[in-house]
């Protein structure tokens, strides 16, 4: 079942609270009023009793009564709310002014001996009609109930209004979110104008939008880049093939053209394979089959592989440190070989490339460093973007380097739960790979 709305819940809670509070206050007030009236009545009864005792002073028998009765009745006539009963010590009724038909609840009574010195003699019972007090109290109770109801209703409405008003920013967020599409990712909420409780949510929402915008921009750029990267070799192939076929040529020319086409096609195939691998990594389909690796030996194997190339380029290869890492051997080799290949292309003759591996508190740190001109700081964050080349002029050249190598390396590192970053200063550039333990 769908839970009650926040507005309804809070309104009900407010109403219940105010009802309980006003009910409690009413009950206390009612109690106090009743006690107060009882006190007043008791005082009045006491006063009257003194007067009547005086009037009846010395009456010991029913025979003495008629003499005093006129004064008593006069006194009673002055106080119509009072009724008197006089009874002998044996309980026989001597006198009773209480109407025979009356409501017992409407009277407060006080029964005392006529003569305080003879507790077992004749007794006086004085009845005070308190109907008007009862009426007052009844009226007050009605008012209290009315107050309870009204205050509950008022707070419920107020609560509903307040909640609605307080949640307006949330509704606005909802509207903004509902209106967002790929083309309006620049929309942002005004986080500083939100109440404190929602500011955090608004900031998180904005941050999410920013990430989406960034990812989307990269994706758009990537699609554009793919088209561009494919268009260039395809256009080469088309033009070349059509021109060659336009007229008969020497056998050697056909052979040359086919060779040239073959190179172009191999480049395309490699690019497609790399992009597929990247797409797999993006979808979490790149599953490393991990095995414990001795990195020292692994790195040496890589350096062996690159040794001929480094020797030709006049670059020294070094390796320092030992560590163990559970990783997919083939993927790791691929990731590192991209870095080494990259380093070799940017290290001037006489320079050094150094692989350094060390265990750290958090896991493992692997560095691929090379001497050579520093990469401008502005380019560092973009290095790992697909098709990014630090030097745009190399775009069309650099045969097999489509600018996917570092992106692939990063995907592989991330697949292993690690991170990669690049630092470059004072003639030394290093790629730092960090893997958790």
């Amino acid at each position, binding site marked *: 079942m769908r839970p009650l709305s926040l507005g309804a819940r809070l309104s009900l809670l407010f109403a219940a609270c105010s009802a309980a509070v006003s009910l409690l206050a009413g009950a206390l007030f009612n109690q106090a009023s009743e006690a107060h009236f009882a006190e007043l009545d008791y005082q009045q009864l006491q006063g009257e009793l003194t007067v009547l005792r005086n009037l009846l002073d010395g009456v010991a028998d029913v025979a003495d009564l008629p003499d005093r009765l006129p004064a008593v009745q006069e006194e009673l006539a002055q106080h119509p709310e009072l009724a008197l009963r006089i009874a002998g010590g044996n309980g026989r009724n001597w006198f009773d002014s209480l109407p025979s038909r009356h409501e017992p609840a409407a009277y407060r009574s006080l029964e005392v001996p006529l003569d305080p010195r003879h507790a077992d003699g004749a007794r006086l019972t004085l009845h005070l009609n308190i109907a008007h007090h009862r009426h007052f109290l009844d009226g007050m109770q009605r008012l209290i109930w009315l107050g309870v109801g009204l205050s509950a209703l008022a707070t419920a409405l107020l609560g509903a209004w307040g909640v609605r008003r307080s949640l307006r920013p949330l509704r606005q967020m909802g509207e903004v979110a509902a209106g967002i599409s790929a083309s309006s990712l620049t929309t942002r909420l005004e986080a500083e104008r939100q109440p404190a409780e929602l500011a955090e949510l608004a900031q998180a929402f904005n941050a999410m939008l920013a990430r989406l915008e960034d990812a989307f921009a990269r994706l758009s750029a990537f699609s554009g880049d793919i088209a561009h990267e494919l268009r260039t070799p395809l256009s080469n192939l088309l033009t070349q093939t059509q021109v060659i076929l336009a007229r008969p040529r020497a056998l050697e020319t056909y052979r040359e053209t086919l*060779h040239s086409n073959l190179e172009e096609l191999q480049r395309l195939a490699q690019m497609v394979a790399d992009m597929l691998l990247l797409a797999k990594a993006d979808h979490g389909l790149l599953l490393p089959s991990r095995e414990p690796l001795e990195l020292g030996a692994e790195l040496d*194997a890589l350096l062996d592989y690159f040794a001929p190339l480094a020797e030709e380029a006049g670059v020294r290869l070094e390796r320092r440190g030992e560590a163990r890492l559970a990783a997919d051997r083939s993927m790791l080799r691929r990731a590192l*070989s991209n870095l080494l290949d990259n380093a070799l292309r940017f290290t001037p003759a006489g320079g050094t490339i150094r692989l350094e591996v060390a265990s750290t508190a958090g896991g493992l740190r692997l560095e691929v460093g090379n001497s050579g001109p520093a990469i401008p700081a502005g380019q560092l964050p973009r290095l790992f973007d697909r098709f990014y080349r630090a030097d745009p002029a190399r775009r069309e050249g650099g045969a097999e380097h489509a600018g996917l*190598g570092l992106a692939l390396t990063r995907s592989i590192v991330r697949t292993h739960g690690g991170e990669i970053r690049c630092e470059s200063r004072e003639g030394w550039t290093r790629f730092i790979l960090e893997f958790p333990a």
Partner: protein
Amino acid sequence: MKLLIVEDEPKTGHSLQQGLGEAGFAVELAADGTTGERLALEGDHDLLILDVMLPGRDGWQILHSLRQAGRDTPVLFLTARDAVEDRVRGLELGADDYLVKPFAFAELLARVRTLLRRGQTTATETLLQAADLELDLLRRRVRRGGRRIDLTPQEFALLELLLRRQGEVLPKSLIAAEVWDMHFDSGTNVVEVAIRRLRTKIDDDFAPPLIHTVRGLGYVLDVRAAP
């Protein structure tokens, strides 16, 4: 050597048939799974090249029937998808190797030859030869024309591979995998450089040249008549 190719894409099928035919194999081609399965079960092929996605019976089903019938003919799969589950499934069903499209023909040829050689027990040779070049596996020495040539361990391994597969064009990727255990197309010209350096030592001062570049395909060690 008799091969059966089951491939529904006509251009690919004919190119493979032509290429493998010219490489010296007798090649049969089936364009759909049902025909392919029948031919595979009736014939006595030395190797099957199966496309995974086929009309009729798919590659997996053909392999399954084949193994059910008790045939252990080596099978090489061609797949357009490099999905992990495909690979796992193929290995479970007993595929011997697989190639992801697009692949280089030289790579396919090299894999086919590797698979065909697998069954043969070659006597453990200790001396590999080509013309006047000798490679002594026990003493790890190389001589040409009676002169000793010093090679690095990698150069030795590279020469050993070329000699063992004399006359076969070996693509760069296969050389990287066999010699350096690098199982990916790194796009670097490491192999190129390594071959060039080896050639300097083996061929520069001698005739005829033994290591040849087959442009766009790879490298081959071959004794050819001097031009």
